[in-house]
């Protein structure tokens, strides 16, 4: 199944590995932060509406 | 306008004004290089133009925060901003003052420090020419960087991060001119590119610097 990478195996595999890791990490961080900020804002607005 | 220039010059020259510090830093950097790369004179000769350019550039960089810091701290920057003098002229004069008190002395010092780096005899004129044409750009670009970070506490490192990439074209052409001259090759092309960048930067950047100062004084 794995293609014959021959002598370039290290370079090709690490390219794919690093790229996917970076993109995945960025995506994960973005999603996590988005959720966190959305929850914090909702809580804040709830609190302010409660006090107002 | 002249009064402002003289004021800035006087501020820089008096004790603690930074005139000597830039030169001392330049000297120290050039002295450190042989310790870093080894004592072989033939190696020094090869890297001399680059090292001298880089040393001058870094010495310039370190004195940039003085451009606006003092005036900003005691409030005189706000006063100057409301004065009839356009802010663009103000930033241009600040840059000129910086060059006269930092850039120009460094240029002169470079010709002396070149001896330490074993610069070939034919390299002195190209080095001098490239530095004379290049250091004004360093001052003007540096003024822009100083204006950006004038409101940031401890903004020195941030300013370096912003300014150093902007220095790359000037450094490339300036050091290349010095290098080619030191090897006896014609160096008119990089020198002209360097001059072109300097003149363009002098003509255009003060507008950006003024806009940024206005933003920071709001």
């Amino acid at each position: 199944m794995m293609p014959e990478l021959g002598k370039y195996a290290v370079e090709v595999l690490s390219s794919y590995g690093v790229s996917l890791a970076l993109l995945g990490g960025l995506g994960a961080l973005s999603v996590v932060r988005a959720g966190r900020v959305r929850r914090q804002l909702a809580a804040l607005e709830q609190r302010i509406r409660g006090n107002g | 306008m002249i009064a402002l220039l003289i004021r800035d010059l006087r501020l820089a020259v008096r004790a603690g004004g930074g005139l000597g510090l830039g030169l001392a830093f330049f000297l120290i950097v050039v002295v450190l290089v042989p310790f870093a790369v080894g004592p072989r004179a033939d190696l020094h000769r090869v890297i001399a133009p680059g090292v001298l350019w880089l040393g001058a550039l870094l010495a310039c960089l370190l004195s940039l925060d003085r451009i606006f810091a003092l005036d900003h701290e005691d409030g005189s920057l706000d006063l100057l901003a409301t004065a009839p003098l356009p802010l663009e002229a103000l930033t241009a004069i600040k840059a000129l003052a910086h060059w006269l008190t930092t850039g120009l002395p460094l240029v002169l010092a470079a010709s002396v420090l070149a001896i330490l780096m074993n610069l070939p005899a034919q390299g002195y004129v190209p080095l001098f020419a490239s530095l004379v044409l290049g250091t004004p750009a360093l001052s003007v670009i540096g003024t822009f960087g100083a204006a950006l970070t004038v409101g940031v506490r401890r903004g020195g490192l941030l300013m370096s991060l912003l300014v150093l990439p902007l220095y790359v074209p000037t450094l490339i052409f300036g050091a290349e001119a010095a290098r080619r001259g030191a090897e006896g090759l014609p160096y008119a092309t990089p020198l002209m590119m360097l001059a072109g960048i300097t003149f363009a930067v002098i003509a255009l950047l003060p507008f950006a610097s003024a806009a940024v100062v206005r933003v920071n004084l709001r």
Partner: protein
Amino acid sequence: MASLWEYANPRKFITTSNRVLPWVGALALTSLSIGLVWGFFFTPEDYRQGASVKIIYLHVPAALMAINAWLMMLVGSLIWLVRRHHVSALAARAAAPVGAVMTVIALVTGALWGQPIWGTWWVWDPRLTSFLILFLFYLGYMALWSAVEDGDTAADLTSVLCLVGSVFALLSRYAVLFWNQGLHQGASLSLDKEENVADVFYLPLLVCIAGFVLLFVALVLLRTQTEIRARRMRALLARERMG
């Protein structure tokens, strides 16, 4: 057709992007998967570069996005300076880390691709060097946003920096070409996508490029939402503090 400027309204931006985001995200992941799997498993080797040509499916899209992200930030900065729409300033801020990551991917894959040819892990090839400089501009831009407390001031300063930086980035490109043009002319590292014109390489590359573009759009939409919400939070907290 409603004016594009309607989306400058933060609330409208969020509602619209909420509708669009799942689709863009799904499309991005689909085309990325198809493109990368196709390129990695189902393309032959290049007769000159062997299997290392497969790196093209990462390097070229990432490099394209590294540039395009900066261009988008430039447009956003200009719109902010002229029309003062917060959404465009925040979108520029949101795009910067994505562009920076794309630049890093372009650098790493570029270096890895060239390693077998050069025998070293890095070369000061004009193209790679220009991307390294671009990365420094990204870092400076992001650092300035973080260092300035007031949102509008930060938006103004970073916008001017983006403008000035763009000019200098372009200038650096030519300076670097001048700086390294004479060396290794014959054996210069050819990372042009024009080199591989054959369909068998080109089609999966197009799919990968599309995937990267869509991923960029999805990430920027998501991150801009976050910036809008964060800005609103800061405003609410400030108002609360003032009583």
